[in-house]
């Protein structure tokens, strides 16, 4: 269809292709599940793989091939030489293809347990997860693990692709029993993640759909399978093309983490950033957090190359636009501040509860100071306590005082200063953070805020000398605004 348009009327084709949606998805499965074959086929059938790449793969298939097929799609997919030689994939690879409706970014991650951190990384930017199940094997431990990770990362849509249907004789019974088994498991998972029914406080329960496929033969990947007349749904690509994703973005709670203060000249002071969620209009009242200062939006400046004296502005902007805001009042704002609607209150706290995925060889140390980066805010934090670590396979909660590489646990962090918090389940952009080791500079963990923690601060006992000093300062230097330590609760 579009192929004809390319040859006959390219301008019309370009017009039609200006307005695609972007969908990012992650593929969960291992090499044995046929993951590379599936991705290779999506790329191949959508004309993303080109002749010269294909001929290189054919050459290499003879050298490294692990399949008896003519083309080993895995080779098309596995990038790094060292990996090819070992026949494994070790890192997240991003791949691209497009249909007439959507542009796709695939986060292709290895499925083994020792690569949990890579899967978490890939899942962090995805709207949807394709979970592969081998029809001969059904729901496995790794299926449980993959489902847990994508749910934890707040992915809204899961599609379970039951692969290798050709090997099980395209049997509807096999498909049905795996589907049932998965749904039963998923119910348990939902309970274990404590989904709130109304989606307000807990996780959003993802949508779950099932498609029987054969990636090798091409059944229900791009073309509807003629071998499985009993399946009435869409093939995978059509499913991806049509699933509703516009509602996944939060447009009701305005959050604008200030990224950079733009002062090109004395007349202009703009706060640049990317709208994390919600929308904003000129004239609306905003509050700057954590200071609590209020003002109104004067202009919403769009990115532009205009050199005229008129600023290029818009009356309204929404997530995920990158804009520059100017305010009615001269108030002190810098990178790391959060601009929100004044009527949209959120908790400010120096103590947070978060789910932590540990990503470093060196284990978590309680009481040690790390740097955390949340949106545009960087600050120091210590891990005060680990409530439990989660067995990613059995979903059991285990007592621990550390997290090792690839372990996931619920932790309480004490921050060096208060930040305005959103739970990750409500707003990903302000509810997520990374943890950085201040010595090695490695990114050692990813965190998802559950809630501002209730502080149970032990009341500090002051020495006589401290109390004396405090009294002295309050008496002689009242302008310092020193707190009375005898009254601190």
């Amino acid at each position: 269809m579009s192929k004809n348009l390319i040859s006959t009327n390219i301008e019309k084709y370009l017009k039609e292709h200006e307005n695609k949606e972007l969908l990012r998805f992650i593929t969960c499965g291992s090499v044995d599940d046929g993951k590379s074959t599936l991705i290779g086929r999506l790329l191949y059938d959508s004309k993303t793989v080109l002749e010269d790449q294909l001929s290189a793969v054919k050459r290499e298939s003879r050298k490294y091939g692990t399949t008896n097929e003519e083309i080993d799609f895995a080779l098309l997919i596995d990038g790094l030489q060292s990996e090819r030689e070992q026949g494994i994939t070790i890192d997240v690879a991003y791949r691209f293809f497009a249909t007439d409706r959507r542009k796709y970014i695939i986060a292709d991650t290895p499925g083994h347990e020792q690569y949990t951190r890579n899967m978490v990384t890939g899942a962090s930017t995805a709207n949807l997860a394709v979970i592969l199940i081998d029809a001969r094997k059904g729901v496995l431990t790794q299926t449980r693990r993959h489902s847990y990770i994508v749910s934890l990362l707040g992915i809204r849509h899961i599609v379970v692709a039951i692969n290798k249907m050709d090997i099980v004789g395209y049997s509807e019974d096999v498909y049905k029993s795996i589907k049932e088994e998965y749904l039963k498991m998923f119910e348990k998972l939902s309970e274990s993640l404590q989904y709130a029914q109304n989606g307000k406080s807990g996780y959003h329960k993802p949508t779950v759909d099932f498609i029987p496929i054969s990636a090798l033969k091409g059944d229900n990947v791009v073309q509807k399978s003629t071998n499985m007349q009993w399946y009435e749904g869409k093939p995978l690509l059509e499913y991806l093309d049509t699933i509703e994703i516009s509602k996944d973005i939060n447009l009701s709670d305005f959050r604008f983490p200030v990224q950079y203060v733009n002062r090109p000249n004395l007349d202009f002071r703009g706060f640049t950033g990317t709208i994390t969620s919600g929308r904003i209009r000129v004239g609306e009242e905003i509050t700057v957090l954590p200071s609590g200062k209020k003002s109104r939006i004067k202009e919403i400046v769009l990115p532009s190359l205009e050199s005229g004296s008129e600023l290029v502005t818009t009356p309204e902007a929404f997530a995920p636009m990158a804009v520059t805001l100017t305010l009615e009042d001269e108030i002190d704002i810098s990178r790391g501040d959060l601009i929100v609607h004044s009527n949209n209150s959120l908790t400010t706290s120096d103590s947070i509860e978060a789910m932590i995925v540990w990503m470093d060889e060196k284990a978590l140390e309680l009481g040690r100071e790390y740097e955390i980066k949340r949106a545009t805010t960087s600050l120091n934090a210590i891990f005060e306590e680990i409530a439990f670590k989660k067995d990613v396979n059995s979903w059991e909660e285990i007592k621990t005082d550390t997290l090792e590489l690839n372990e996931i646990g619920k932790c309480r962090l004490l921050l060096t200063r208060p930040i305005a918090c959103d739970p990750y389940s409500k707003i990903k952009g302000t509810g997520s953070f990374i943890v950085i080791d201040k010595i090695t500079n490695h990114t050692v963990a990813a965190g998802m805020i559950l809630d501002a923690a209730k502080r149970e601060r032990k009341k500090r006992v002051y020495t006589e000398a401290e109390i004396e000093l405090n009294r002295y300062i309050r008496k002689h230097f009242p302008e310092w605004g020193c707190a009375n330590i005898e009254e601190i609760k």
Partner: protein
Amino acid sequence: MSEKNRLTHLKQLEAESIHILREVAAQFENPVMMYSIGKDSSVMLHLAMKAFYPGKPPFPLLHVDTLWKFKEMIEFRDKRVKELGVDLIVHTNPEGIEMNINPFIHGSKLHTDIMKTQALKQALNKGKFDAVIGGARRDEEKSRAKERIFSFRDKFHRWDPKNQRPELWNIYNTRINRGESVRVFPLSNWTELDIWQYIYLENIPIVPLYFAKKRPVVEIDGALIMADDDRMPEELRAKAKMQKVRFRTLGCYPLTGAVRSEAETLPEIIQEMLLSRTSEREGRVIDKDQEGSMEKKKIEGYF
């Protein structure tokens, strides 16, 4: 399709790139943007202009000049920089000048190493840049599919593919020690088609070599090489013929093959690209030196 409150895929890519560029400006002391004069660089420069509007980008451009670029590229570069009022640093490896490096004599491998890889390292060491913005895309070449957006380099500019920092959401770890640096790729998630569509939509100026025109070319090892420079050996220039050709990628002219083409406008270029069945780096001699060659070059510090 253009519903309210929804960004098209190109607008989303644009917003993501702008976010990345602003993050560099906010988090690094001495950033620089590589400018190779090609189409991806043109898009990147356009995005940088947009990101800091109504101001100018708070970092200079850096062009590593191998002295073997197409003439039209250098003309275009100087004109563009003047129009936009941005700072440009040009660096050429003085040792290469001294040795009189010539790809026709020394071959592509040595030329690329001395005039590109070594020259880039010199320029970065000289400028003490802590962040270097480049126009690489993940869809270009297999080893790039796994490259981070903020990609750490040690003090020898080396990239260790096995030891990359995890990169989640749109939060980038920008912490480095003195002497280390980060390569930043704001176009990571753009595909070749995205780039062309964006150039078309936004009317971004690009070097005329991308458009088909009658040009003097000579066939060397199956590649059509431009013959408009008297440094090309006489016996090769003598074989040059006028043919209607264009270039799908731009680099050093002796290493960049042209394709026969009738595409004189942007839509025609895009049409040709969509209907063609070979990928864009095919015209480049350096990628195919050996399998995994791009990965090896990156480990040595090539972009």
